[in-house]
């Protein structure tokens, strides 16, 4: 009788434990500007693939590339620029494909209290401008835009990723930054965007790459580039590939 008291809970526990082979975990590394879009993307993918769990890791593309280089388990990598995919090209399976584009925009606090209208306005010494280091995609793109416009700025801080810029500006800590239009959109009423003229702007191309042979990885990439995936991206303000 005593044995039964031990066996029954054990069996119950054994039954409750799901067979690990039944559920698949998909590790998706996505750049910061894709935060909201890829959260919805993952939910949609899980909805049509019930046995897949998408684990989303969001950070600056450069941070993600670094983690991948150090051997982090990853199935899919969506970056904001090709440069960071190139850093891990030896782990990429097949060819990366561009799945979305983005443009840059100046971001200020809600209702733009300082009345910033052009890139030149950012050069005013009293304006606290923040950006990212150049190995973060937005940092590189910003440098390119400023070079095109012939404007030199002295940022007061180099944030870790584009969301860091958004945070500093929306809390009023910094006066302005340059981010993606999708980020301004995502910030909603807490921020105001100021357009950058097309001739000075850059088009950011977002490549997506497969880093594992799992079928699910390929399925995910296909989903992102499908019409459903593109609809989600469009909803968040991304441009066509």
């Amino acid at each position, binding site marked *: 009788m005593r044995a039964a008291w031990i066996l029954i809970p054990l069996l119950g526990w054994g039954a409750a434990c799901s067979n690990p082979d039944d559920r698949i975990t998909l590790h998706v590394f996505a750049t910061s500007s894709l935060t909201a879009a890829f959260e919805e993307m993952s939910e949609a993918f899980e909805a049509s693939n019930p046995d897949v769990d998408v684990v989303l890791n969001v950070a600056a593309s450069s941070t993600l590339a670094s983690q991948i280089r150090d051997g982090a388990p990853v199935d899919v990598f969506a970056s904001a620029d090709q440069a960071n995919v190139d850093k891990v090209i030896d782990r990429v399976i097949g060819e990366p494909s561009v799945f979305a584009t983005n443009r840059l925009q100046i971001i200020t606090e809600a209702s733009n209290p300082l009345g910033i209208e052009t890139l030149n306005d950012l050069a005013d010494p009293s304006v606290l401008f923040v950006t990212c*280091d150049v190995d973060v995609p937005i940092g590189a793109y910003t440098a390119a835009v400023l070079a095109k416009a012939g404007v030199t700025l002295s940022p007061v801080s*180099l944030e870790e990723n584009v969301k860091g810029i958004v945070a500093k500006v929306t809390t*009023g*800590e910094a006066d302005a930054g340059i981010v993606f239009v999708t980020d301004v959109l995502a910030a909603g009423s807490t921020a105001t965007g100021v357009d950058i003229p097309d001739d000075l702007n850059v088009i950011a191309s977002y490549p997506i790459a497969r880093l594992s042979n799992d079928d699910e990885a390929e399925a995910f990439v296909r989903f992102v580039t499908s019409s459903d995936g593109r609809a989600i991206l469009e909803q968040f303000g991304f441009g066509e590939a």
Partner: protein
Amino acid sequence: MLAVIATAFFALPFVGLLWRTPWSDVADVITDQSVRRALWLSIQTSVLATVFALLFGVPLAWVLARVSFPFRSLVRALATLSMVLPPVVGGVALFFSFGRRGLFGQYLDDWFGVRLPFTTAGVVVAQTFVSMPFLVLTVESAFRQFDIRYDDVARSLGATRWHAFRRVTLPAIRPAIIAGVVLAWARALGEFGATITFAGNLPGTTQTMPLATYLALETDPGAALVLSIVLIVVSFAVLIGLRDRWLGNPNEVTRS
């Protein structure tokens, strides 16, 4: 056996670090201007933070140890809270209270034109915030253990309270003060989370060694290794320099 494991636990990471360091690149990295700037900034800010911790921490420790007042435990808990908090949380707290739009920060800006975030002063504030508790706790404990009768003796001999404090109490707790200073300085030097959240990250102004090391890890791991070695060497040098001589018992000083 357990002691051996404990020692290994502390030693092995350093062995690994030394093993992977690209020794041929060391010279290049060390002479890089951004590295020198980060190191100099770290030293300046951590020393200043330690000085503030000492200036404000010793009186606070004395009050906590000797004066009984309502909510004393609460005050002590507050003073040492930043020690148990994750540094980032400390940074967030500083951000929302002393940032430009912070509860107190906005007055700092409006009335005095003083801005803390994105400045070296902000780095010192962040470092002081996280390191002072170490000094307060160490020194308070020493004050408590100090026999107050020595104070009575000094006063009966004609010493004012201040004279007695300076000549009798402080020298007697010198080992604790030194230990507190070292702990506080080490904590300030290694401070990262609160610094990057509150002060920001800009080479030369707010990019201290820990920040530089963390960021280098992404772009240039070899440089990160070298930066780590530099930090370790500097810290080690200070700790070795102190030795038991200073941390030991003042009675044991002998004169010829």
